[in-house]
């Protein structure tokens, strides 16, 4: 738990920065509630309600949320991830399903960065493909971008058709 790059596993359900912020807020709230209840009655059994995404995080990393040191470590990891701010914006022609976003997120975390987050947008002019934007660059992987790369070929083909 001490080194997030080596040991912490970020589930695919937590794919966007807003998910991380919600987890941080949830964990902070939970930590405070548990601390207050412990102060009132240290021997009482805690009844904890957590979100599905928090559950995925706990299962993926085998964390006991009732343990204060685990909660503190998890919050520390969340804050570090939030500070890293490895966000990739990616736009599609239509709204993507959660499964589709999970597959894209998986590819990014396997191939690019295991702790990156993606922000999904919609751009109907894309048609086919997607447009990805990292911190400094834009990768046009849409049909329009593909046609731009082959504009000379397209122009020559159209001129051949015009001659015919």
């Amino acid at each position: 738990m001490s080194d997030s790059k080596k040991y912490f596993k970020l589930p695919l359900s937590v794919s966007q920065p807003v998910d991380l912020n919600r987890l941080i807020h949830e964990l902070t709230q939970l930590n405070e509630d548990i601390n207050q209840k412990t102060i009132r009655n240290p021997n009482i059994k805690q009844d904890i309600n957590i979100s599905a995404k928090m559950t995925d995080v706990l299962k993926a990393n085998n964390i006991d949320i009732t343990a204060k040191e685990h909660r503190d470590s998890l919050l520390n990891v969340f804050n570090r991830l939030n500070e890293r701010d490895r966000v990739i914006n990616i736009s599609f022609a239509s709204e993507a399903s959660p499964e589709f976003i999970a597959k894209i997120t998986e590819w990014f975390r396997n191939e690019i960065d295991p702790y990156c987050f993606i922000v999904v947008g919609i751009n109907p002019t894309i048609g086919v493909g997607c447009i990805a934007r990292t911190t400094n660059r834009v990768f046009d992987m849409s049909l329009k971008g593909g046609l731009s790369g082959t504009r000379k070929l397209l122009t020559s083909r159209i001129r051949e058709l015009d001659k015919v």
Partner: protein
Amino acid sequence: MTIWWFYLVAAFIVAAGSGFIWLTVQISKKTLGQPKLFGSDIDSTTKEVVGHIFNDEFREELKNRGRLQFEKIINDSAEFLQQDLRLTSSQLNAYMKNELTSKVHEELTKYEQSINDARDQAIDSIKKTSLALDEQRQVLGAEVQKDVAEEKVRIINNFINQLTDIVSHYITSAIGSEIDLNDQLDYILANLETNKQAMIEDIKNV
């Protein structure tokens, strides 16, 4: 010419009258101026003879003869004058006719010449105008052709520059939402794989 004839006739009349008067006076002088050869008897006899010869009838006869002669001369002169006037009038008419004809012909010649000059000038002007119009037409034609060619090139270039947008828009409109994102997953992942290294470098450089 007519006035000279009038003067001549008048002079002739005056000369005839003067001669008649002179003759009468001379006769009277001879009768009255003869020397008295026989004294007063001769004179009286002479006077009687003269009075018998130059009586009133004789004088009246002389007057009539003179009057007739004068009238004859006047008539002759008038007739001559009339003939001369006719001749002069005919000559004058002929002269005027010739002069007017020549003048009219001359003026007509000048007028024809001026009309020819004006026509030549008009033809030259029309030719120059036609040439200028041809030149302007050629210039305008060249400019229009140049503008059309430039506009054609501009439209073609604009079309080529926006070709990808046009084709993409057409394909997007054609396929609409027919292609699901899940169907595009392989295509998207392949493109991501192509740009993977660039993405890694950009993220690592942050």
